[in-house]
């Protein structure tokens, strides 16, 4: 029996939006799982990187609520190995941008240990602000 998955127009709009922001052809993902196998931080994630790709393909917006998209640190292990040449760091960034462009931060700057800021390299601070705040 052939199963057919129907993605509603809202889901399709979501997929298109993420493809526009990321510039990646997300529908070409084959779900081979090499990204998940390569990712050093899956232990800290709630869903796997390949699962993020699948959810975006299907237009499932709840992917925005996952920890995974914020844990991705763009280390690019996955991209280096993806047989489809996809850059998952750009997909994660696009998903983060949905919140960040509405100025919804994922990181409370007040939580930074004041003593530690004296030791922290500026690139750690700027990197965090760029990735986690809108």
């Amino acid at each position, binding site marked *: 029996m052939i199963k057919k998955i129907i993605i509603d127009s809202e889901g399709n709009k979501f997929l298109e939006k993420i493809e526009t922001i990321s510039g990646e052809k997300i529908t070409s993902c084959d779900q081979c799982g090499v990204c998940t196998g390569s990712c050093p931080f899956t232990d*800290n994630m709630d869903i796997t990187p390949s699962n993020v790709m699948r959810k975006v393909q299907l237009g499932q917006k709840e992917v925005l609520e996952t920890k995974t998209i914020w844990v991705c640190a763009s280390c690019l292990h996955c991209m280096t190995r993806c047989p489809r040449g996809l850059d998952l760091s750009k997909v994660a960034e696009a998903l983060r941008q949905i919140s960040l462009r509405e100025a919804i931060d994922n990181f409370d700057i007040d939580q930074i240990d004041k003593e530690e800021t004296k030791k922290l390299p500026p*690139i750690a601070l700027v990197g965090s602000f760029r990735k986690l705040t809108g």
Partner: protein
Amino acid sequence: MRENKLRIPYYPGCTLKANAKNFEVSALHSMEKLGIEMIELPRWNCCGVVESLTADDKMRHLAPVRNLIRVEEMNEAGIVDDEFRLLTLCSMCFNTLKRSNKFVREDQENLDLINDFMYQEPDYQGKVEVIHLFELLADRGFSRITEKIEKKLEKLNVAAYYGCMLLRPRNISIDDAENPNIIENFVSALGANPVNWHNKHRCCGSYHTLSNKQLVVDSVKEIIQDAQKNRAEIIITSCPLCAFNLDQRQKEIKEQDDNFRQMPILYFTQLLALALGLGKESFGFDQNYIDPEPVLKRFLE
């Protein structure tokens, strides 16, 4: 006959002027000894730190590209002589500058857009090549370092840590992205022994060190223990964020696991300065959290 000195534009970036002063000073002094004069870019600005990953927002490429204009200006002003290579030390600066350079050089539309937006600046002509110090040293031949060595670092086991930014994405990598050996070759040139290990390009956790410290602590522990398992005595790196995480987060690892054996993390230029026979003022070991002196004692006397 006296060898001609190489004069090359150099982009330091913010962290080399703050937490990683020991990286800069050790590099400047070592390069002087190797006949390379690093000329700091006038009016440099932030490299952007993390590469822009959004296709629909090109604004983030302005900062890196503006730095590249400075290199062309240096050539026009005669500060350097037909030297369009821009030397970087910090891996993150290298990554963002090189990627943004590709972004404008390989797409005329992007170049025009960025140039139009920065109409008060001279147009960027796309002449600049962003390179990392490892590439410069490798191109000149690591044997030229060996010739100048005063203290051969014999029997010192060194783990070469690449991190992410020197290798990925593949199209800007300083070596094979999956199986690099450029830093190992550098280590061999100093007379030291590069260890073979698995985690040399595993991500340390990067900027999560602020918002998700435990993630970084766990990652660093795995990296360091792998280096130790392969008998490394020190780890060298060129990324100030990796260096911070690998060095400073050993405090938290030790608090959580008393059996953990701490080990020194050095910038590769600190090791180079040592091998070149430079003085303590060129090492900047006081900025290292784990004191490297006990391990390097036999070379410091």
